């Protein structure tokens, strides 16, 4: 604990940052809602909305620039993508309101929206 004495300010800074990050995570976790539907945005425009309650498999994009979106058991996942980094594929499944999968090369955002399947836009920030 010698380090703490000589690095008091560093330790305080680290503690404050971790607390802030933790508080933000707890806040988001506490206010999470099960998602109602999945919204697909390309270039910032919503191109489709799919209910999470229905299992679907859909190919987005064309040519080599595709992302395959799969909805199963109330969760959405990108299972295949025609981009080199595969970040969206590695991201895994999303099911809570506010969660999203991003494919930057294809300017695609797949996000879960809360509330009913009717398309009421619950503010998820």
């Amino acid at each position, binding site marked *: 604990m010698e380090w703490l004495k*000589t*690095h008091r*300010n*560093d330790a305080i*800074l*680290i503690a404050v*940052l*971790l607390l*802030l*990050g*933790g508080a*933000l*995570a707890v806040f*988001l976790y506490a206010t999470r809602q099960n998602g109602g539907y999945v919204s697909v*945005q390309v*270039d*910032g425009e919503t191109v489709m909305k799919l209910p999470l309650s229905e299992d679907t498999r859909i190919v987005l994009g064309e040519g080599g620039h595709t992302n395959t979106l799969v909805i199963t058991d109330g969760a959405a996942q990108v299972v295949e993508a025609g981009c080199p980094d595969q*970040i969206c594929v*590695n*991201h*895994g499944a999303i099911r809570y309101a*506010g*969660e*999203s999968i*991003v494919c*930057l*090369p294809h*300017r695609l*955002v797949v*996000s879960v929206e809360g509330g009913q399947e009717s398309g009421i836009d619950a503010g*998820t*920030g």
Partner: protein
Amino acid sequence: MKASKVAQYGLLTALALVLSWLESLLPPLGVPGVKLGLPNLAVVFALYRLGWKDACVISLVRVVLVTLLFGNGAALAYSVVGAALSLALMGLLKRTGKFSSVGVSVAGGVAHNAGQILVAMVLLETSRLAWYLPVLWVSGTVAGVLIGVVSGELVKRVPDKT
């Protein structure tokens, strides 16, 4: 510019570049953006050994070279904003004289990740990236501690020959 300085610039830039490449070989850590920030070893070292402006130059050259070699345009926007925010905050914190390389590097790590999320929000015109924030916030803190400790030791141990 003195020859020794040119050599130091070249060495540190090359080192940062190699560390970027090395990091790209590591397996993804689950969430995009969560990473160690190995190139920042060279940047934090430069910040302490050479100075703030020198660290900025090395960081900028690294970002441009990495983009030319491995990346794309979108990645450049991410990297530049992240690196700029990070360097601005690290410079400020270092100037207060109240923090060691650990605190400075932690602030840099968090600023870097926060900057990247801001760019993502602007580029994708969406505010639905809230979940990334706490994850990248904490990962930036942890990575910052590691980088700060190691580069602090390096500054102490690597002999200053200029």
